[in-house]
């Protein structure tokens, strides 16, 4: 009976957080508009009613102050979850994230750990312009010290959130706004999945093959898992058998699953909503070049061009990797 229950991604995330808060009184959540409002992307919907203002805390608009407070609380043994409302805002608290959260375990010689989760909303598709539409996956995965999680379905989101809260290291949990299942920002089919009511964890560093195929490997994450699956569906009608790999976590990165798949197909397309240069797509391609160059017959990247993301709907649609772009890339490497 419970197996049939479907949840949106936001509800799956909230269910994991609520369960961890019931189990462990050191877990608490803070961020802008997370209490009365329930999170502007529903990331804390309903939690205030159960846990109250002491554990679901609205904060003033100072990311430096509350992310710093979260780092301190974590070092003292609590398990804070602190929400950066839009990932684009990380710059105002860069020292807290890059130098304190990510490095204090190392700098203290291991005498403190920082078991916190920084949740943050990522991604475009809804005309929110250049300062509210980025994914910045590469920016967080680049710097050593943080684990980086990017779920694409409700099932994965719940298991990964349980794991994130229980992890003794800082975890950056990046949820794509378009996948959350909001009334004003409808999700495509795909992220809403059956979700068991009981707790379960999904280990970090294990990619998920969302579709098996023999001809071309598509490596992606977040929203573009669903766009790649759509592309695979229409390519299947033309006899092209596409394998779609959902990375799920960037740090740690499951290089093995990617390399294994390319050894099978010989053809690789990397699809990334983050900027093309100096990022995820380059990392995946070089991983395959390092470990399976002899298997690699053709490769292509589909990523955000290196420009600020436009506000105008048509222009944003132009720069965002679309299903048709993925299809074209797959045909190119065939």
């Amino acid at each position: 009976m419970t197996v049939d229950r479907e949840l949106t991604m936001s509800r799956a995330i909230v269910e994991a957080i609520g369960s961890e808060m019931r189990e462990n009184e050191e877990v608490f959540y803070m961020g802008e508009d997370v209490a009365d409002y329930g999170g502007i992307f529903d990331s804390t919907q309903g939690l205030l009613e159960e846990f109250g203002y002491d554990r679901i805390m609205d904060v003033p608009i100072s990311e430096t102050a509350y992310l710093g407070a979260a780092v301190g609380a974590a070092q003292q043994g609590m398990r804070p979850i602190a929400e950066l409302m839009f990932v684009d805002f990380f710059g105002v608290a860069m020292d807290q994230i890059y130098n304190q959260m990510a490095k204090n375990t190392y700098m203290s010689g291991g005498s403190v750990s920082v078991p916190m989760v920084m949740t943050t909303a990522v991604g475009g598709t809804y005309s929110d312009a250049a300062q509210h539409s980025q994914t910045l996956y590469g920016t967080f995965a680049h710097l050593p010290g943080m684990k980086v999680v990017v779920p694409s379905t409700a099932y994965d989101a719940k298991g990964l959130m349980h794991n994130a809260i229980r992890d003794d290291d800082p975890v950056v949990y990046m949820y794509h706004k378009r996948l959350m299942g909001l009334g004003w920002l409808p999700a495509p089919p795909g992220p809403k999945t059956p979700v068991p009511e009981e707790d379960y964890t999904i280990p970090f560093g294990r990619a998920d093959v969302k579709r098996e195929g023999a001809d071309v490997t598509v490596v992606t994450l977040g929203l573009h898992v669903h766009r790649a699956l759509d592309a695979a569906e229409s390519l299947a009608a033309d006899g092209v058998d596409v394998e779609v790999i959902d990375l799920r976590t960037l740090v740690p990165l499951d290089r093995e699953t990617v390399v294994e798949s390319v050894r099978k197909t010989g053809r690789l397309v990397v699809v990334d909503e983050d900027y093309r240069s100096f990022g995820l797509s380059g990392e995946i391609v070089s991983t395959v070049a390092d470990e399976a160059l002899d298997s690699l017959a053709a490769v292509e990247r589909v990523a955000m061009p290196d420009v600020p993301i436009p506000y105008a709907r048509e222009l944003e649609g132009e720069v965002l990797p679309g299903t048709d772009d993925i299809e074209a890339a797959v045909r190119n490497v065939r």
Partner: protein
Amino acid sequence: MSEDRVPVVADGAWTDDVDEEEGVVVNWFAKEGRRVTAGESLCEVQVEKVSVDIAAPTDGELVEIVRDENAEFTIGDTLAWIEPGE
């Protein structure tokens, strides 16, 4: 047969201050044919930018969804039917 079925109604009981009478179904959390429990969230609807959950009025089987996702409705409309049972 049909008079035994219990309607799942978007009755507007969640607010006494609705100016709009029209809403839209945002998400269904159950599919037709599923056993449901009284009080569990069956779907989420949105009226005047406010989202609320509609709960199952009784235990039973969700036999028919009348208003699917993205369908519009007027307050008071039946969204689905449940055939009562343990």
